[in-house]
């Protein structure tokens, strides 16, 4: 880690969705998709966010980018406050537009991420033209160049999204994000829908691009086995909240939180001499609208005690630089 300047700082981020059909006198029930999440991302690093399906990863990514209205908390990018709900602050329109160029997102579902009625040139040039990345005459050449960086031919420019495979579509999604010359990219499970060999191609592409263009990633995944190799920091998310954060290597070598331990035990072993016992999680993930009282993980935890049912543990520093939200530490 050469530079240690904080690029993105998220504090107390919350995103609640009203649950449909619960508008009874007691007030609406809320689905707490993201519930008080704080972290910061250093420039040039990769921060991983891990969690089961439905724990609120995508929602967190979107809220950071201000693609949906936040319910609480604040996000600071460099020296700009994108929003601060409690402090009633919000970035101005002009400033936001400038920031949009610097922060981009790669979406989970490459099918829904590309407009079926736009050819690839239109997909890529939209942001290029908007932010005047290059002068009008050379937009086409520029888009072709970006495509080639992402491993696609120039002829792809005039084809439509449905003419591409999942892997190719994901490359187009990456190209679209890169085209405006961002510094920070939220990668929302960009490889989740792809088969393993294509997955590693896309991952390698993204890592190369990161090095060559000195990017910073917030990398969302449900597979800790995939991200542990290249992330600097990892946060483990459960039901909208971080239950453990820390340096990626240490977190994977010696997970603290029982949930992290269970996730890691499910990763296939690569070293045949390594001994490992699979920890099975009991029960299924509770509904986000019905988060258990006390520690939100206690319903599935092997170590659950009386205290866990009553008192919610906060993230506390269990070891230097390592935080876990568990009464065990």
């Amino acid at each position, binding site marked *: 880690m050469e530079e240690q300047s904080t690029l993105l700082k998220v504090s107390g981020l919350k995103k609640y969705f009203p649950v449909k059909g619960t508008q009874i006198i007691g007030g609406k029930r809320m689905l707490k998709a993201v519930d008080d999440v704080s972290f910061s991302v250093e420039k040039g690093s990769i921060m991983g966010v891990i969690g089961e399906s439905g724990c609120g990863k995508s929602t967190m990514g979107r809220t950071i980018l201000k693609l949906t209205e936040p319910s609480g908390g604040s996000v600071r990018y460099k020296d700009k406050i994108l929003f601060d709900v409690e402090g009633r602050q919000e970035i101005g329109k002009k400033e936001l537009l400038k920031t949009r160029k610097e922060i*981009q997102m790669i979406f989970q579902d490459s099918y829904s*991420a590309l407009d079926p009625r736009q050819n690839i040139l239109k997909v890529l040039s939209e942001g290029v033209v908007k932010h005047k990345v290059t002068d009008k005459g050379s937009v086409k050449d520029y888009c072709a160049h970006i495509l080639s960086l992402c491993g696609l031919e120039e002829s792809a420019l005039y084809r439509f999204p449905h003419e591409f495979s999942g892997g190719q579509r994901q490359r187009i999604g990456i190209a679209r994000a890169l085209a405006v010359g961002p510094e920070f990219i939220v990668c929302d499970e960009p490889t989740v829908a792809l088969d393993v060999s294509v997955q590693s191609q896309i991952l390698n592409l993204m890592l190369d691009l990161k090095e060559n263009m000195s990017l910073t990633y917030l990398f969302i995944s449900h597979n800790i086995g995939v991200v542990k190799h290249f992330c600097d920091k990892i946060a483990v998310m459960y039901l909208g909240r971080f239950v453990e954060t820390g340096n990626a290597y240490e977190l994977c070598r010696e997970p603290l939180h029982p949930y992290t331990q269970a996730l890691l035990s499910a990763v296939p072993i690569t070293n045949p001499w390594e001994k490992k016992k699979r920890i099975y999680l009991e029960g299924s993930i509770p509904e986000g609208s019905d988060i258990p009282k006390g520690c939100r993980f206690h319903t599935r935890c092997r170590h659950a005690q009386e205290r866990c049912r009553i008192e919610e543990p906060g993230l506390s520093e269990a070891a230097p630089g390592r935080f876990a939200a568990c009464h065990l530490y």
Partner: protein
Amino acid sequence: MKKDQNKPLEKSEHIALYKFIHNKTAVISAVILFLLAAVSVLAPVLASYGFDTTDLMNVRKAPGSLHILGTDSVGRDVFTRILYGGRVSILVGISAMLIQLFLGTLLGIAAGYYSGILDMIFSRIADAIMCFPFFVIAMSVVAVIGPGTFKLVFVIGFLMWPKLFRIVRTEVMELKENDYIAAAKAMGMSSGEIMIKHLLPNVMSPVLVSSTLSVAQGIILEASLSFLGLGVQPPLASWGNMLSDAQSMSVLANNWWMWVPPGIMVALTVLAINFVGEGLRDALDPKVRG
């Protein structure tokens, strides 16, 4: 969860064209409509009389060599009036369609995209218009503001937009959940740009189908109101006001040429438009195989 409608099987426009061309009813209807339109446009060339030329010596004449479809109660040539009437009917139908197209699409996209209070206001207005029987409200409005071709067009167009509005609004509500909308937002696109560049092109197929069908509806409405004397006023010809001659029992019984031809024209045009509309719907629907 995400709709598979966004995964066209092949290049969707080509498939649609292919399916439409292989739909015989739709193609024949399209040809008929084209001929009707051409004949109406060329009315001044094809007709040997003026649409308001009266010949009081030849009143209610049966079809003959002089007047191929006979003459009406004041001696006007029925064939000529059919041609000119076609102009009016088609013009009214298309103009009303354009009005509902504009209102329905614009308000539908805005309501679907912004939801909230805007959606509530537009939806309530649409509901209010739709909850009255179409014809009753049209009649009452015309009765209040008075008859006339222009007024007719506006009344019909204004009464038709809620239907398209609902279709577009529902479609947009679903479309806007797609990630390409989020991606456009992340690019810094404004709401207006998103609506015009991403939502509008993606709702075009249902809009096209619904608007085609609304031309037929407009023509029927014009005919009905004109039949009641609330629409196009004589001496201007329209199929509807030609039919109003058939209000008299003696005409109905003895002078078939005065009301059968305009009746057939209305039926033919409306049927043809409906067939084309349904052909379009099937052609544009990826679930229907050609």
